[in-house]
């Protein structure tokens, strides 16, 4: 039972948001896959549980469309790790994804606000 504890607050990731989260995470520094997963988890206060079965396909897809680039480096634990960094193309993608996300939030908020006032009445 205790193993399931960390998942209790997990929210299922909205479809299409994983790319945005990855790009955002890479904005400040290059990072390996595990690090990205941890950063997203921490940044979302443990709400987002990134499934490796989605993370690596997403990373490889982003790499193929040249939004991120990768190289092998040695981590502080002296371990060979594959590190991803944002490319200029990735930066533009990030900006697009962010503005799309903001529009989504505004739209959602608008709809939810209307629904909320109705519920109050």
């Amino acid at each position, binding site marked *: 039972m205790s193993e399931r504890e960390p998942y209790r607050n997990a929210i299922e990731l909205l479809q299409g948001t994983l790319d945005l989260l990855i790009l955002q995470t890479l904005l400040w520094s290059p990072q390996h896959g595990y*690090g990205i997963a941890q950063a997203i988890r921490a940044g979302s206060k443990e709400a987002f549980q990134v499934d490796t079965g989605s993370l*690596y*396909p997403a990373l490889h897809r982003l790499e193929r469309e040249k939004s991120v680039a990768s190289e092998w480096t040695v981590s502080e*634990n002296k*371990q060979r790790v594959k590190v991803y960094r944002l490319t200029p193309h990735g930066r533009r993608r990030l900006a697009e994804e962010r503005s799309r996300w903001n529009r989504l939030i505004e739209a959602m908020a608008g709809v939810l606000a209307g629904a909320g006032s109705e519920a109050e009445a």
Partner: protein
Amino acid sequence: MRIRFFPFGRKRRERDLDEEIASHLSMAESDRVEAGEAPDAARASAQRELGNVALVKEVTREQWGGAWLEQLARDARYGLRLLRRSPGFTIVAVAALALGIGANAAIFSVVDGVLLRPLPLPDSGRIVAVQPLTTATAVRARLAASYPDFFDWKAQSRSFSAMASLRLIGATLTGVGPAAHLGGEIVSSDYFTVLQVVPVLGRGFVPADDRPGTQVVVLSHDLWQSRFGADPAILGRAITLEGRPYTVIGVMPRGLRFPVDDKPPEFWTSIAMDAEGEKPWTSNRGMTTLDVVARLAPGATIEGARAEMNAIARNLAREYPDDDRDRAEARVIPELERVTGGVRSPLLVLLGAVGCVLLIACANVASLLLARGTARHRELAIRAAIGAGRRRVARQLMTESLVLSLLGGAAGLVLALVGTRWLLHLSVSNIPRLDDVGLNVRVFGFTLAVSLVTAVFFGVAPALRLSRTDLSEALKEGGRGSDGGAGHTRFRSGLVIAETAIAAVLLTGAGLLLASFRRLESVPPGFSPERVVTFDTSLPESAYPEDRQTRFYDDLVAAVRERGGVRSAAAIFPIPLGSAHVGISFQIEGRPVPKADEPAAAFRQITPGYFETLAIPILSGRDFTPRDDKAGAPVVIVSRSFAARFFPGESAIGKRIRPGVARDGEPVTREIVGVVGDVKHRGLGEEAEPEFYVPSRQMSIADMTVVARVDGDPTLLERDVRAIVAGIDKNVPVYHVHRLTEYLLDAVAQPRFNALLLSVFAGLALVLTAVGLYGVLAYAVALRTREIVIRMALGARRSDVLRMVVRRGLSLALTGVGIGLLAALLTTRLLRGLLFHVAPTDPATFVATGLVLAAVALAASWLPARRATRLNPMEALRRE
């Protein structure tokens, strides 16, 4: 830069991915250890969090560029594994495809070699044949040209960059080794310019070589090597042809063969040979002996050339009505079309037939795939459940089809290799260019393409149907999928009906050709060919003036007769069903007509005893005797159709005709002394034409065919003929030692070839259809096991069950037969040109086809039906 090259880059990426996931795991593990978990528990929970490593890798891999290739390879491997697991299915499917694809590859290799491949000459598409057409009859028959016409064509036409005449001749080569009969051509000086072939040694012909008295010769590469040891000093040397010296001026490159439907010529000489004598052929407009070839000028079109030649022919017909009145048209066709015209339609019919066989094979395999797919229902449902989309499943099924098809194609190529050998072995000289046929890159390409298209044909429908699998339904139905199964069964029933229909069309076509062939073969040729040995000899004119020719053939026939076992012997020219034909016009005494209106008939020169030797009946009058010679009265014997056409209702004996031919001097009037039976000289399918025979003692000829009927083993005489001839004159060559039966076989070789092949293909179609029908019924019985055993438990008798299954099989087959016979009614007219005395809608053939297919369907239904009656109810229900 990442190397995307498969498989090296691929391998590195695989390693990278492994390492990436491993590093992920170890980082997760050490984080957990730092957080205070025990090392074992940390590893376990890190792994649990990561999930199914193989799956993670799999979905990640799918993101890579070019992943479809990887997937294709994986699906193909998977497909191969599946095929290995069900060898029964695999063998049946691959065998069906191999038969279908192999038959196509074999026939395509023939079509490619005979019809499609260009002639082996530079820019050969612009080489055309120019032929006068007869305008005297409704059917425009091709005629030979005369030298004066040819000279006028050449001078007046503008559409050709070069035009040349050719005439095939035989000549005796003496002085180097034993006397040999050579095949050669008399060609005009532009000949090699038309072909665009240059000699490897010396020169070709120039206009000066055409002057009478010039005796020059160009040798073929083969002759130069075999007879002259490839001597480079051959140029300028004289060789002896027909007893006269000819100066060698050139040697042509190896393999030069034109026209390709004749034997490769061994020498070429100029038209000077035809320009000699008192009335040389080069100035005789009525003497039509030439083939004319030309090369289209740059920018000229074949239509333009045709129009121009027609205009020229019309003018010549006006200018020289005596000779050219009936030749007011000319035809210009590509040489390749001229060569292959006669075999194009039978070969295309065969190609259509093998296409049908392949369609049936496809229907069979599609049906098998559906049946198997129903059994794989559960596997496919599970694949769909773990996230494979419909497209993904369909793609995997298509890949499996592709694997099957390529296996079938590979096996088919082996079959084609064997099949093509067999074809070449079967066939005869009647199909031009057949020796060029073989498996080459184009045939490989064709086979590959056919295999791919085939995979689409038989794979798409099953892939679409099976990938539509509804997950919940599939699992609910306990994996059998009785509903989907029934739907598939309907589809498969449709396939069986289609197969049967196609098989019916093929069977009808084959039946018609077989009937036609049987009829053709049973046509009496007018003579009895059994145990008749024939051979040709050729006398050099220089050493053999007329009286010596007569004496030579007298001596030769007498020497042959003296041999033990020879019952009778004689000599003739031209031999029935041989390649030579001589038509001569004549005047009938008492009914004079202008020269252009003279009737013509086939003309033969014979020695006494010819009719007896070939068992041609003498209907009235008498045979020639040795006394019918120069000293005797001029006589002639005519055939029955000659007598019937020109002397209807009266006796031809005693009537007198004057054939327009003479060795020297004026033609003489001859009295008809006998009427003999008709002989199919031109071919068994042709009407017997009027003919007349003159005694060679009154009009001799240098080249004759000796015919001898023997009592015992013909090989004894065949072995001795060279010695017999050498005993008279060792400078006389002997060639074409054959039996008369071979001429007959040759005459029906092509119809036999067509009938045999179409029958083989129809047989294949029949077998495949039977297998298809059997498969569908067996499967339907398996699906309905529960229903059948319940019926039986409720009292249905075995005979009821038997009848139920057989009725279903027959109803499918008969529906197909009905559709097929209707389709055959529409398609067999394509065979019209190939049929002899059989209508394309011959009722007997159609009925026979229906019966054969019904019988086969009955047999194919019987086995599954019997199995249904033997079901053990308890066992069957338990298995359900």
